[in-house]
């Protein structure tokens, strides 16, 4: 059975590194893995997604609407934007963090204050985390993405994979310890 995890956020938030580590771990575990992401123009502060699919044999790297087992959103509005990709009974982890899109900055649109409520109304399995704050607490605001990776590891029951080794082999030595702590923090949040 193929599983699909959708990581969404704003260009520059680190969805790519989080999904890279995730896919490497899944490959080590013996899964067939595919991942899709879009580079280029959309990275300039636009909406971005990394789509990860794994199972015995995966054909398409692209998650279909209504088929994601889990959506992890690095920013609130992005969760709502991508929600139609979620399965009926899928899980949502949303980072309680706002980044204002240009139409809001320009006063041409409102960033609704009740985005989280809207998500909760639509889905019954929603976990709100404050990964941005947790990362600052860890002393490195940049590991927000790895904290969210931790939530995926826990929620998708992937904690038997040797993440310690995956991180050590793929992250610059100076950031290894922060990243390992961040995974643990994330796992404890869900």
């Amino acid at each position, binding site marked *: 059975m193929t599983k699909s995890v959708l990581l969404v956020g*704003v*260009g*520059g938030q680190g969805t790519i590194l989080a999904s890279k580590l995730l*896919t490497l771990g899944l*490959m080590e575990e013996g899964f*067939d*893995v*595919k*991942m*899709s*992401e*879009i*580079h*280029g*123009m*959309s*990275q*300039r*502060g*636009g909406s971005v997604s990394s789509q990860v699919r794994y199972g015995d044999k*995966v*054909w*398409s*790297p*692209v998650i*279909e*609407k*209504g*088929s994601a087992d889990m959506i992890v959103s690095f920013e609130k*509005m*992005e969760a*709502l*934007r991508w*929600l*139609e*990709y*979620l*399965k*009926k009974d*899928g899980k949502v982890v949303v980072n309680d963090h706002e*980044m*204002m*899109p*240009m*139409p*809001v*900055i*320009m*006063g*041409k*649109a*409102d*960033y*609704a*204050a009740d985005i989280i409520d*809207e*998500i909760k*109304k*639509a*889905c019954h399995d929603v976990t709100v985390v404050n990964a941005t704050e947790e990362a600052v607490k860890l002393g490195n605001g940049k590991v927000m993405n790895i904290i969210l990776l931790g939530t995926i590891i826990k929620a998708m029951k992937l904690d038997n994979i040797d993440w310690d080794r995956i991180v050590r082999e793929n992250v610059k030595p100076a950031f290894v310890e922060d990243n390992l702590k961040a995974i643990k923090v994330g796992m404890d949040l869900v």
Partner: protein
Amino acid sequence: MKKLMTGNEALVRGAWEAGVNFASAYPGTPSTEILENMSGYKEVYSEWAPNEKVALEAAIGASIAGARSMASMKHVGLNVAADPLFSFVYQGVNGGMVIITADEPGQHSSQNEQDNRHYAKAAKIAMMEPSDSQEARDFMKEAFEISEQFDTPILMRMTTRLCHSKGIVECAERADVPAKKYEKNIAKHLNPPAIAKKQRILLEDRLVKLKEFSETTHLNRIEDNGKKVGVVVSGMCYCYAKEVFGDDVNYLKLGFTYPLPSELIKKFCTGLDTIYVIEENDPILEEEIQRVGFAPKGKNTFPAYDELTSDVIRKCVFGKTFESVDYDRTKVVARPPALCAGCPHRGLFYELGKKKNVLISGDIGCYTLGFADPYNAMDLNLCMGASFSMGHGAAKKFEMFHEDMRVVSVLGDSTFFHTGINSLVECIYNGSKTVNIILDNRITGMTGHQENPGTGKHADGSDATELDIETVCRSLGAKNIRTINPNNLQLVRETLDWALSLDEPSVIITKYPCVLKKFSEEDKAKFPDAYKTKNIVDKDKCIGCKMCLKSGCPALFLNRDDKKAEIDPLQCVGCDVCQQICPKNAIGKVEK
């Protein structure tokens, strides 16, 4: 050995394993990472060329001299390289040669959605289309063999999803392929008409042989599941189709797609009740199936634009996608891309957008975003290097009809070297009353920071001869040139006014490194203060007038509660543009 690789990484791996010697490219989404990755393989000479035509010509020279070579580019890049392509196909190769075209169904980062499979037929070049990362590696390896066997360059057609999606790839070591000897052969490598006419006849002969190959190669195969419904498919669409239909249909999976195997197509289609042909963009396979006498469901069933991902196919064939959750979509606010916090293009567009009776001619790069709110500082753009030349034509018209309009044209440093130089020659030679601005952010920004002739570095980071833009412009005959720091708004204003006061062409160079650039030692020495601070709002002084928001900086926003400006400290890098705009001196700065 198994590795998780993007399609682009896998292409490079395949080429490396095939013993490729020479790789040249110009960056362009989604092809950029091909050459970037190749520069990590030390056995291969890898370079950024100033444009795609030059890249292809360099690869052709290497092939004729006996090297296995490749050139890679995005789909519109092949338009730039079309001139050498069409004639080189007549001549054939010495060392095997592959041209990679990375097409963009869905236009994620492109100005058009052209289907470069048409180039194969138009230029009479053999074409291959992998379906996933493993095939990208395998096909690339095989392409060099086919190239040398049939004496033809190969067009390797990729698409965005294939380039940028990862899959598991079984890899091998690099083959020991000795480079071929160069032998002078004017009957093959010169093309005055008397010789080219003979090459023309040989070319048709080669196409007959390639067609025979196409009918029998393992690259084109039937997957017979004993069904009455068949799917004809190539490239990424094979994976999308397998996702939707599984083993419930028969497949004709095409990997070698020019010349197409018409006999194999006939064999596959015979006896089927329904034939689907699933191809993104134009009905190329469909028309071939029709030509051999069948009536498939193609563009009457699937759209001719955008990607044909599994959910699109599912909707077209079965009428609906998977069921999802229901929610209020009206609360979703669009998030268009924007110039980054600290982007050195901001100051220029902030001031330029205020000018009246000015046509602003734009170009391809991050700075295309100057068209958007709040700057509204771009009237038109078209293709690489076109801003100066289109601006020239517009200015001549305004002059002819004595209209009260001026033209300001903008392009980036890499775009200037790409084809902007030619356009500047046009402006200077033909004396256009245009202001020509080169936004020199010291890197090729949009595609993710590749070196170019102006950065002083090669693709592998080694030192290169730096072409100084001001010196280049002067040598082309430009007399009115000023180089400025675009973060100084008063200087930007004064310089624009100076240029618009002239009755002849002028050049303004805004020189400041991209905020996302990894600074070289030279950058650190030349721009020691760049991005070392943060701006902050003094809430006591801020009156909530929102003037600073007109800078269009994504780090600035109006606080919902106190209705005053606020700066996101995680994003701000202290460019001071908002500080200069604030009428109340309410924006200060602190060390980072």
